[in-house]
């Protein structure tokens, strides 16, 4: 269509694309201009080791998450497991624990002389338990906290499977377990790949857990280089990290291209097929309980322990309100900014399709592959180049959070916008309202549920964001996340308990709103 794209859509989208692309362009520019001795420094064993470590971590976390999430998602959707609803919520809840809080809680619980050791050394003669720092620590923490992404993706796909397919399999003489193998799991392939992509990207860009557990992957290496002033080498590593992320995304889209069109049919009121677990019911329950214990019960107990101990020993005297205020302040500012940009970008992508809009979308898609640490680093260097008033300003921090939250925000707004009949705005125009007025009086109000969902997600992501805040925040600007991270790295474990609790509490509220809203959606 030749329709002109309105300025309120076009201008923010162009600005946004420039903002998203700028850090990457700057990093590439800086890498290309690096001295030859820096390149020599890059091409050595240690760098290869970082690549191997990172990829091994990503692969292991993905596989373990799949092993946890696949049976749980099938159990909670397709079987007669008791307390299904209850377990669904419990298995989604680890999402509210940020990775650095998880790392903090696990390392204090399972370190060689940690809480768990103290607990069992009363009964058994042992000197210490195996060291959980490094690779396995990171694997355990990231798998237990990230598996819900895969769990929720698989569940969404499982619910959409047409029960008639399963019923025909039953009529063809397959038993319940054959139905799971031969009918259900093959249909889950696209969901498995996109869920694993999600987990891989989170693992790849995770900074909090790997830095606290001392496992030197890309993100921590970049941070260390940055701290010690190696800006060129940090830039080169960031570009490397970006390339890996991009490859993962391309791989996923290539694999899933063949499946994508199968699951389109939506299932209305049909009752899903329920497989009878019979004697395996107890096994299913046990599996759910074990996962629940390690992903939620242990972290929460350890947190309570530090809290009680801190109060008891006088380490926690009063609540420090500054980081709470800063975190909320940043999150609110980011949410407003992201929503203001996400609306025009969604309109561009859905309502004003053109060659320009497609290329802008492609470009911003590259930006979405950028791991947080690369974005932050690129912005820091740009900020430093420009100097005041940009460098180390709230503006810079909000820009960083904007880039990283935008993909999260676009999902709900876009899918809501897709459901809104474009004729509604045309009707508004024929009733005497200008283009802009029709959009604001008609489309935006109907978009509201999508906006609420996006806002709560953005608020949630910003509250727990760590690396962007470490790199981009103004001087003496403590937030809940940076407080937890620095207390933990300096082994003030009791002091980290209060901010962790507040963060988990806030995240849980947002999470509850999200769950509630995603069910009650007027259409």
């Amino acid at each position, binding site marked *: 269509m030749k*329709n002109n794209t309105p300025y309120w859509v076009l201008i923010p989208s162009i600005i946004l694309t420039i903002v998203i692309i700028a850090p990457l362009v700057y990093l590439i520019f800086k890498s290309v201009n690096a001295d030859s001795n820096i390149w020599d420094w890059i091409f050595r064993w240690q760098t290869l080791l970082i690549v191997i470590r990172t990829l091994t971590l990503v692969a292991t976390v993905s596989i373990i998450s799949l092993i946890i999430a696949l049976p749980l998602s099938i159990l909670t959707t397709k079987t007669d497991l008791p307390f299904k609803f209850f377990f669904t919520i419990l298995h989604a809840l680890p999402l509210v624990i940020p990775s650095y809080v998880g790392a903090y809680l696990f390392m204090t619980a399972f370190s060689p002389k940690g809480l768990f050791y103290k607990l069992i050394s009363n009964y058994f003669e042992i000197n210490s338990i195996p060291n959980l720092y490094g690779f396995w620590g990171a694997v355990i923490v990231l798998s237990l906290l990230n598996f819900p992404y895969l769990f929720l993706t698989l569940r969404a796909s499982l619910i959409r499977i047409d029960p008639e397919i399963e019923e025909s399999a039953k009529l063809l003489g397959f038993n319940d377990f054959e139905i799971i193998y031969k009918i259900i799991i093959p249909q889950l392939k696209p969901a498995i790949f996109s869920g694993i992509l999600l987990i891989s990207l989170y693992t790849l860009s995770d900074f909090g857990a790997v830095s606290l557990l001392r496992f030197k992957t890309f993100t921590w290496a970049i941070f260390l280089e940055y701290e010690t002033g190696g800006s060129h080498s940090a830039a080169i590593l960031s570009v490397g990290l970006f390339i890996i992320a991009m490859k993962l995304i391309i791989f996923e889209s290539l694999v899933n291209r063949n499946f994508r069109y199968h699951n389109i049919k939506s299932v209305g009121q049909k009752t899903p097929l329920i497989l009878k677990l019979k004697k395996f019911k107890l096994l299913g329950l046990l599996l759910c309980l074990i996962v629940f214990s390690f992903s939620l019960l242990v972290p929460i107990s350890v947190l309570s322990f530090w809290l009680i101990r801190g109060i008891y020993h006088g380490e926690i005297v009063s609540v420090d309100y500054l980081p709470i205020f800063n975190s909320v302040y940043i999150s609110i500012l980011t949410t407003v900014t992201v929503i203001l940009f996400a609306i025009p970008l969604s309109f561009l992508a859905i309502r004003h399709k053109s060659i320009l809009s497609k290329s802008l979308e492609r470009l911003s898609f590259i930006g979405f592959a950028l791991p947080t640490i690369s974005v932050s680093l690129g912005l820091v260097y740009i900020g430093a180049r420009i100097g005041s008033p940009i460098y180390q300003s709230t503006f810079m921090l909000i820009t960083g959070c904007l880039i990283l939250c935008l993909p999260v925000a676009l999902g709900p707004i876009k899918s809501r916008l897709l459901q809104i009949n474009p004729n509604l705005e*045309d009707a508004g125009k*024929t009733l005497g309202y200008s283009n802009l007025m029709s959009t604001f009086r008609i489309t935006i*109000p*109907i978009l509201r549920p999508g906006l609420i969902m996006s806002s709560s997600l953005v608020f949630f992501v910003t509250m727990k964001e760590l690396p962007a805040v470490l790199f981009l925040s103004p001087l003496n600007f403590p937030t809940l996340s940076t407080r937890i991270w620095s207390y933990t790295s300096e082994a003030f474990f009791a002091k980290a308990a209060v901010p962790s609790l507040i963060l988990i509490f806030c995240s849980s509220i947002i999470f509850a709103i999200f769950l509630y809203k995603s069910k009650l959606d*007027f259409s």
Partner: protein
Amino acid sequence: MIKKQSVLSCKNLSKSFNSTLAVNDVSLDLFEGETLGVLGSSGCGKTTLLRLIAGLETPDQGEIKISNSIVQNPQTNIPTHKRNLGMVFQDYALFPHMTVKQNILFGHQSSNQTTTLKHLLELTRLNGLSERFPNELSGGQQQRVALARTLASTPDLILMDEPLSNLDASLRKNVRNEINEILVSSKTACIFVTHDKEEAFTISDRVAVMDEGKIDQLDPPDKIYFWPETKNVAILGGTCEFIPGIISNKIVSTVLGDLPLRKSGEFTNGTKVSVATRPTDFEITVSPTGMCMVVDKKFTGDENIFSIQLPTNEILQCKHKIHTSLFAGLKVNLTANTHTKFNTFLP
């Protein structure tokens, strides 16, 4: 006769999408109080024509005047909201987040809202539903809300894009008659796009038959039916089958005998033509020496339609009385009804 005021005048409108010509050099005029039906099969460009008039699409060339002022030509492009026209969409496009009342008054800018609302609710028989949301209404009610909303903005011209196609058959007839009454009593000019000839014929003062972006014929309904100018208009205007014939003076000779011509002198004697026949054109008489044969019978309730095989193996649909003992395999003769005249086209 008083000359009526022109409401809409389109001249040489054209619009193409990626090299397909959706609207091809269309010109038409509409006068106050008149209802114009645009009849065509799907994809013939009728919806695009409406959207061009509404200003929701920009034509590649041509001129549009509404109430004698230019709203569209190569120099001017008045935006939709300043054209003072209303549109009823195929899917009604009711605002889901507003009540019936809010929907109806959305485009009503003047102060006497309560009077307008009361009048429109009465006119469209929606009394008592004003606080409901669109998803709480039946299809027919939604349709009437869409119409009321359009009327509330007192447009000079109403455009309707297949407004009945989303209703089930039993409802369609009633709503069609209601729309007709509402349009007559509100005296608003209207363009009514449809693919259903019955709808077009009953609602419209004049019908424009569209095919591949062009208007083939623009005439009152009976003229479209009885005097089709092209083969396509004959087909769109009603059930139609063609048999070959040869022109000689005022008649055309066919396998069914000599048939009288509607327009004599159109073709020279000896021209080979296709003769358009309608199911009501022939009388079936049973005869053991009949040249034709009944091959099938379709009973639809209100009528009996027989498929009759001609000696040349063509099959014609013919209406016959309800109480009949005709059956497949019977030999019959077909004779043209008195008064029936036939249209011919080049094959």
